[in-house]
């Protein structure tokens, strides 16, 4: 009896030190942020010196039109970058999933943008969007079209394009890995049954890749909600608040406005939003995994 109990506890005992360390390392800063969000806290004070104000910071944000505008910008930015990057990234992976000469060089080239530091990406795109000497307007000049105020009238579109350029490779590389790990027998069986390339993509490849694609989209989504440097360098959040995503507003609130409590409350709103999205996507992922498992079993039965 005692041995059975010890056997059951042993794994937990081994895991306990790591679990405790992880819990402290993860939860302490999070708890600090949550605690700070209930205080009228500025950078010159320790958290203990700051006055406790209850839900004041949360209520302030709830009624703050600038916060709502930043939240709207963030949602629009995240929706467009993730959707477009997924379409292009997965499309490229499907296109390049073949054994031809030089394909590895091509794949390496595609992933170069994500290796560049965000500040450099911001600077690079800022200069390419320059109204007079920038690449895009020079091109428009050369074909006789009017110049565009990229970082003025089309600022959000312009930062979305820069993000797509940098992070589509991330989707591409994970999609390609997922594609190459698909059971070849399933694709073989489909081919023998006369399925066209398009039918293979729609009915075999995409459903089997779906669990990986969902996690990939989730990772990009989380990242898109937190993007900061590229937008800071390109537009500083303007014109007006048109590109001021939440991460930028949080940073400004903490450093420029010196309101750490409000910044912490804003971070917590963002955290809650991301948690809800994550839970939703994981639920969808479980459903997709079950569907993929059923499909796998069916394919194996048929082959």
């Amino acid at each position: 009896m005692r041995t059975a109990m010890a056997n059951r506890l042993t794994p937990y005992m081994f895991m306990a030190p790591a679990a405790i360390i992880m819990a402290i390392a993860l939860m302490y800063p999070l708890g600090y942020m949550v605690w700070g969000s209930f205080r009228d806290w500025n950078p010159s004070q320790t958290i203990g010196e700051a006055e406790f104000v209850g839900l004041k910071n949360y209520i302030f944000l709830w009624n703050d039109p600038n916060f709502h505008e930043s939240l709207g910008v963030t949602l629009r930015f995240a929706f467009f970058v993730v959707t477009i990057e997924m379409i292009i990234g997965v499309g490229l992976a499907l296109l390049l999933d073949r054994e031809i000469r030089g394909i590895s060089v091509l794949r390496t080239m595609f992933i170069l943008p994500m290796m560049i530091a965000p500040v450099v990406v911001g600077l690079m795109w800022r200069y390419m969007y320059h109204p007079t000497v920038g690449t895009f307007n020079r091109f428009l000049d050369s074909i006789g079209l009017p110049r565009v105020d990229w970082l003025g009238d089309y600022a959000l579109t312009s930062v979305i394009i820069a993000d797509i350029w940098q992070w589509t490779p991330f989707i591409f590389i994970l999609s390609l890995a997922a594609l190459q790990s698909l059971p070849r027998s399933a694709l073989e069986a489909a081919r023998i049954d006369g399925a066209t390339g398009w039918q293979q993509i729609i009915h075999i490849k995409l459903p089997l890749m779906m669990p990986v694609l969902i996690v990939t989209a989730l990772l990009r989504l989380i990242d898109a909600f937190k993007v900061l440097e590229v937008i800071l360098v390109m537009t500083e959040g303007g014109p007006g608040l048109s590109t001021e995503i939440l991460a930028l507003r949080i940073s400004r609130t903490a450093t420029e406005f010196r309101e750490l409590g409000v910044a912490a409350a804003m971070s917590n709103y963002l955290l809650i939003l991301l948690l809800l999205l994550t839970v939703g996507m994981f639920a969808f992922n479980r459903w997709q995994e079950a569907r993929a498992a059923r499909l796998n079993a069916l394919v194996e039965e048929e082959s």
Partner: protein
Amino acid sequence: MFKGLKTTAVGLTTAAIMAGAAYANPYEEYAGTTLIVNFPAHPHYNAAMKVLPEFTKETGIEVEVDQLPYLKMRERQTLELAQDEGEYDLISYVVFSKADYVFADQLENLAKYFMNPKLADPNYDAGDLIDGYVENIGVAGGFKGYLPGPTGSLFGIPFGSETSVLAYRKDIFEKHGIPTPETYDQLLDAACKIPEVEPGMGGMASRAASGHQASHAFLLHLAPLGGRVFDDAWNPIINNAAGVEAANALKTIVDCGPEGAMSFGPSEAANAFATGQAAMFMDSIAFMPGFEDPERSQVVGKVGYAMHPEGVRRGSQTGGFGIGIPKNAENKEAAFLLMQWLTSKKGDLMVAMEGGNPSRFSTYQDAGLNEKYPFAATFGEALKFADPDWRPIIPVWGKINADIGTTMSKVLTEDLDIQEALDGVAERTRAVMDDAGYYTWQ
């Protein structure tokens, strides 16, 4: 009132001569000390770093510089100054940090150093420091809490400070018979006439990007046009007739400016002028030497410099950096010696000759400096009108500044009604001030 403060400092330093005379070398006691200083990545401080070896040679005090981009510097200082024992002995602070640091009791009051006969140089001549700079950057606790007054004290010395002047294309103005703008009417007329007579060239390049840049650009016009952000009782008056006129002036300038002007920061605006895309540029003197540098400018020799034009009054900006001693510094006295040396007549001139911004009237009058930098005379003249109250340096300014900047950016890009937009700013500003306790005594 500040004259009184300066006179007191001069008197104290003079009184210090007697006791100081007992020491052959005031630096001897501190020789071998290593000071750690925090400077921004800025042309003035790059110039200052070139003269630091001379200080070490003269005093035996070593100096290690931690140089950071200025916003990063502020972040670092925010953390560093909150410690019991700090890493820095001397810091440079950007002007709007003055209120935060003094309010949090993180900077040394300099009176006790100027009272110390062992430390205070009798030849320092504090009266020669540019008044507008000292009032804006060095003094806190007086009138409005950030200007000189009976309750004010000195917490820093201007070092790397700036005012605004107008740079204009002499050749273009002469070609079209446009007078050098001395008034705002002339400035705005010229700004919109240039694109008509010189197709493809904007009138004036200005900051206009959302946030701090648009706010800075608006305030640059507000003071000379007779406006203020607050009246003396802290009522926001940014939305009065002068405020509307200043916003209209900025809108006119941007509308008649070079392409893409709405997203310009100071570097883009300066670059537009330096590459011939705009005929005028009105901003900090820190940008002006670049227009005479053939490596950075395509308009060398074609640029004239004039004072910031007059509206209902003259009122050029004051800003930039000062140096102060953190409360938690380890080597405060040696840090004061370095601060004093750098801002002395000799130090100020040495730094200016290396391309820094002078903080003393006498430096601007130096023949050598005027020979090397022909625009120095205009800068010196402009400093007589440097306005320390063009921008309120109060602890909640960051938030108000961001709101003004965002609203101005919307005025420029979304054609908001200016009066309505400024009324909104005034209302939100009042709420911020109320929350910070400014109306407690009303």
